[in-house]
């Protein structure tokens, strides 16, 4: 038999009040479910993306919040597709979030957005790259950031424009060798690069896919060395990109220009290669926090807020991209006056902002599949142990020029 004492009843009453108070408070907030990996091998960048969301939410809250409510970010851990579905289920039913936002992992974004559709909730994508995410035509899915295609396009454009001009050669005289890890991520980018370069008349003298789990990549370097390319374009993950660069160093393979896509721009690569080993290497990545304030208005404000809140410089450029993506989402929701996916999508489609409207330099103009056509990566270069933005020219801080390319 259960005995009720005065004390236990009082405690129960206090608990109920606290719960009621808590839920009343939660109902007052505009709840955003942030789907990202917060555990496991990729947690570091999941945290970094969410830091961008938090900074954007704080900025919006300081100006009165969203739809009259302060924004509250609720984290949903998802390191793979299954966890994405579980997190969406949990945040929809337990926390009753208003909208979802995420992540840089395409598999998570794909599964998460489909699960969110079951609850008729918006899934706003800021950082995932896979081209097929928008091609599905999911009615609750919007991508404000760049896609894999834009990475391929910018790297090809950099070869034709920046490199050819810099080396004083015609595009038709340039020899390019492409390497990429052989999953869908690297293959999509590598294939598109080859296609675009061939269209521009550049000679693609070799294309070598490899497994990111390889213990040794000397064969890739030796084959490439035989082709004596002017430009080496590579797409991979951090450990295999580091191994490739170290093997190239060991084999004395140093083409005039090396461009890495999406990786080789973090502390992890600096630690592996050292500043001298990386000097002059180009990296195509999300717009970095060193772009010029004129190109990305609000970038300085972001950087100051990041340093103040997290006590240092951003770990990676992902957070700036997420920061801007969150702001665009908030504008679309505000314009829609609610969170119904069809209303937000329609409002987002009506947004029309020119390039240079946000801290990344992005504009906003969504296509029919809800891909922002005015989002793009930028090209950075390792100079003196740091990556600095060098291309497009207007993104670079005045005075910063690419090195290792003799100008015409």
């Amino acid at each position, binding site marked *: 038999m259960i005995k009720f004492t005065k004390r236990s009843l009082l405690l129960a009453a206090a608990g109920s009040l606290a719960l009621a108070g808590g839920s009343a408070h939660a109902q007052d907030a505009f709840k955003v479910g942030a789907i990202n990996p917060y555990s496991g091998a990729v947690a570091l960048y999941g945290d970094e993306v969410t830091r961008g969301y938090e900074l954007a939410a704080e900025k919006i809250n300081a100006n009165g919040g969203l739809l009259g409510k302060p924004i509250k970010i609720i984290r949903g851990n998802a390191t793979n597709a299954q966890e994405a579905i579980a997190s969406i289920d949990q945040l929809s039913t337990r926390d009753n979030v208003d909208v979802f936002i995420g992540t840089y992992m395409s598999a998570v974004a794909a599964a998460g957005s489909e699960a969110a559709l079951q609850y008729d909730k918006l899934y706003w994508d800021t950082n995932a790259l896979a081209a097929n995410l928008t091609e599905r035509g999911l009615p609750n899915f919007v991508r404000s950031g760049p896609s894999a295609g834009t990475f391929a396009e910018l790297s090809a454009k950099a070869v034709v424009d920046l490199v050819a001009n810099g080396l004083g050669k015609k595009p038709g005289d340039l020899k390019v060798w492409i390497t990429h890890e052989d999953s869908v991520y690297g293959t999509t980018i590598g294939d598109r690069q080859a296609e675009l370069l061939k269209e521009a008349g550049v000679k693609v003298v070799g294309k070598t896919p490899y497994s990111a789990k390889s213990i040794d990549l000397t064969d890739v370097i030796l084959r490439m060395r035989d082709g004596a390319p002017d430009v080496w374009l590579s797409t991979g993950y951090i450990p295999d990109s580091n191994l490739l660069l170290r093997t190239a160093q060991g084999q*004395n393979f140093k083409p005039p220009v090396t461009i890495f896509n999406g990786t080789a721009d973090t502390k992890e690569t600096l630690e592996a290669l050292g500043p001298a080993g990386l000097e002059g290497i180009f990296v195509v990545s999300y717009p970095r926090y060193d772009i010029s304030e004129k190109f990305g208005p609000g970038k300085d404000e972001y950087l100051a807020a990041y340093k103040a809140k997290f006590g240092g410089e951003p770990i990676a450029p992902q957070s700036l991209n997420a920061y801007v993506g969150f702001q665009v989402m908030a504008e679309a929701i505000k314009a829609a006056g609610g969170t119904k996916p069809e209303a937000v999508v329609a409002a987002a489609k009506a947004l029309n902002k020119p390039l240079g409207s946000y801290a990344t330099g992005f504009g906003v103009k969504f296509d029919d599949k809800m891909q922002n056509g005015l989002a793009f990566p930028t090209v950075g270069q390792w100079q003196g142990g740091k990556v600095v933005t060098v291309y497009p020219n207007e993104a670079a801080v005045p005075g910063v020029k690419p090195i290792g390319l003799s100008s015409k």
Partner: protein
Amino acid sequence: MSAFINVVTVGLLLGGIYGLVSIGLNLIFGVIRIVNFAQGEFVMLGMYGAYLAYLLIGVDPYVSILVVVPSLFLFGVVVQRFILQPLQNEPMMQVFATFGLLLLLQNMVLAITRGMSYTVPTPLSQVHFDLGGVSLSLSRLIVLLSVCVVAIGLSWFLKHTLLGKSVRAVTQDRRSARLMGINVEWTYMLTFGTGAALAGLAGTLLAPIYTMSPQIGGNFIVAAFAVVVLGGLGSVWGAFAGGFIIGMIEAFAGYYVNPELKHVAWFLVFIIVLIVRPSGLFGVMGAEEVGLREQN
């Protein structure tokens, strides 16, 4: 011709890596008859051990061997005593236990490092020799020399020391060995500890070559399984030779065929060897070999 010599060199150096990672796995399999799924994670622990030693006391990874290898030996002894020994009569459960250990170790390191990749700096990793157009990296050369020393040392230990003889006796017939007064449990602990220590040695020697991640052990272990089956289950020299065979196949297939297909090439050879000679290329039935006879 220069390309051919280069590819042979790459194959030899790669074979050294595979051999070093596989010898410990093969020793454990030969003596205790456990397929240790966590062996790759022991290699990973060796790598992180080298990094930790660098971080805490600033020592070079090659010096950290003095700390990491004995630590892994002790860890192996503890695993054998407290996880595997209680399951001694349930071999299937022992295999599952090593798989559980794999997940545990991998996720523990993930939780601690938050998935950040690390590299251990050493001035030696920057040293390369150029011998007539063939580039040799010192850190890989050290691995190659180490695997030779380990194979010779382990072979000598098993043949010429009392402890080694007890290991061989247990391998050949556990029950008879016990009747002869050999402490089988201690022999198992010694063997598992040595297997883990060898993985630790591999990890510290490989740490300057790779960017380490908690999952890196998995990259080595698939190849290591192929090496031990190809070379001969339970044979020290089998693992040694198997490493070089796999290394050569990979180097040649990667350069002359396609880097994407190099793993297909060695799996193909692996399957053919399994069909033609299931005991492996160097697995000869006999008491002087480790781990080839069925237990009674």
